[in-house]
């Protein structure tokens, strides 16, 4: 318990120090943009593929479920709400933790193990500002964009199977979605994606920055990133869903 509290304290202090250097990091947009590319663009393929498959699964499963109540026409609403409010942010965050989070943690951990962070300090450069902050901000910016891509691919996948295979009327699918899914639903997804992006990226850079400078230490930091991020995403999802009810 004491160790857990100490860890929460360490993460909080790290976050405060990180936030203090973020304005300086934003004044040099180059590294931040590079990190948006590294964490965002390089995760695109897996996010698009998973979004499409999740959408296709929903097209099958929801069509079957709704047919039992004679409400196949509600497929568009059901898929839209499920994707925008829950599936999109949660699955993207879990994939993000596995793809970008591990990459961030191991990269920063290896930089520590190979003295790159120490070299920066000796060159009078704060590694928190030069290495950690751009990666943190990059992840923060990339995450909502990835969620949007996942949602679009998911809706396309649902429509592909629901309309083309399961026979739901295309006009009904889109008009129902347009009528029932509001801006507040989209807003909920955006807020969730921001919170999840914040949690996943923070844990990745924290674990990487504090990794033991050994091969085992970097491996451990990477594993911890995935586990802690995934658990945090699910806990935050429950809390935010409850708050938005």
């Amino acid at each position, binding site marked *: 318990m004491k160790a857990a509290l100490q860890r929460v304290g360490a993460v909080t202090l790290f976050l405060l120090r990180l936030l203090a250097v973020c304005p300086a990091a934003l004044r040099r947009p180059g590294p931040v943009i590079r990190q948006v590319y590294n964490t965002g663009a390089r995760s695109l393929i897996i996010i698009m593929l998973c979004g499409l498959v999740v959408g296709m699964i929903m097209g099958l499963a929801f069509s079957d479920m709704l047919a039992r109540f004679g409400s196949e026409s509600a497929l568009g609403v059901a898929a839209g709400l499920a994707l925008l409010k829950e599936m999109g942010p949660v699955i993207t965050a879990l994939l993000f933790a596995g793809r970008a989070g591990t990459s961030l943690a191991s990269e920063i951990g290896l930089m520590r193990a190979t*003295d790159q962070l120490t070299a920066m300090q*000796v060159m009078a450069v*704060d590694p928190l500002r030069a290495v950690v902050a751009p990666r943190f901000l990059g992840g923060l910016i990339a995450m909502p964009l990835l969620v949007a891509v996942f949602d679009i691919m998911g809706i396309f996948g649902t429509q592909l199977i629901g309309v083309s295979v399961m026979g739901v009327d295309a006009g009904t699918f889109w008009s129902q979605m347009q009528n029932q899914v509001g801006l507040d639903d989209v807003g909920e997804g955006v807020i969730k994606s921001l919170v999840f992006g914040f949690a996943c990226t923070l844990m990745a850079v924290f674990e990487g920055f504090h990794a033991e400078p050994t091969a085992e230490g970097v491996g451990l930091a990477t594993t911890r990133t995935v586990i802690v991020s995934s658990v945090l995403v699910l806990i935050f999802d429950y809390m935010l869903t409850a708050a938005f009810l």
Partner: protein
Amino acid sequence: MTAPQGGKVVEVRGVRYSAGSRLIFDGLDLTVERGSITAILGPSGTGKTTLLRLLTGQIRPEAGSVRVLDQEVETLPRRELFALRRRMGMLFQNGALLTDLNVFENVAFPVREHARLPEPVLRRLVLMKLEAVGLRGAAELMPQELSGGMARRVALARAIVMDPEVLIYDEPFVGLDPVSMGFIVRLIHRLNDALGITSIVVTHDVQEVGGIADYSYLLAGGRAVAQGTTPQLQASQEPAVRQFMQGSSEGPVAFHYPAPVYAQQLLDATDLPAGRKP
């Protein structure tokens, strides 16, 4: 060899430092004169790298003082410590190049961080430094594509790109082929000679550094056990100095880590490491 131009660049007085329960320094004293090449010698594990960390303010001594360029390193606030570090350069043992930047950007990194130079000026400056280490043609390579010796030369170009007053070398000769080794030795000498940079070379390579060092300190047992010019150290009758200069495993500096009696441990079958008892 450049004659020291007077003035102390580094003054370490009565420094005590321990890592965990292990006492690394206990009453360490040493001085580095401006414009000199000073060698810090000692076997592995005598705290040579720890000394460099003390000089650059990465760690603070438990007792004593460390003065670098007339400033007390251990009491400096962060901003002033960073300002002091800008006047120092350090060559890491493994180069410590930033792996996500190419050679050119690695050398340009400190300049981009601390100065706002127009791109053409920066380019010329970086190419000049790379030419000085013979790697102008490697500007576009990534650190992963460099050999160990090349990586160290790039790191040296990066260390001198801000024209530091003090340049610290951490084991600059380890793992180098004879050509690279000779090049680095000449380069240290030339930088010291031409630019008046004060050089601190931490090494256990007595032969290589002996030819260029103005003054040397030999660290052992947490203190500087001997000091002087290379001929003085070579002529020393002090057992620890003789042992180190001649590279002998027999002498006051223990080669073996403390252990039970060898024969007894071999015969005692039950004396296995913890957790592996039969």
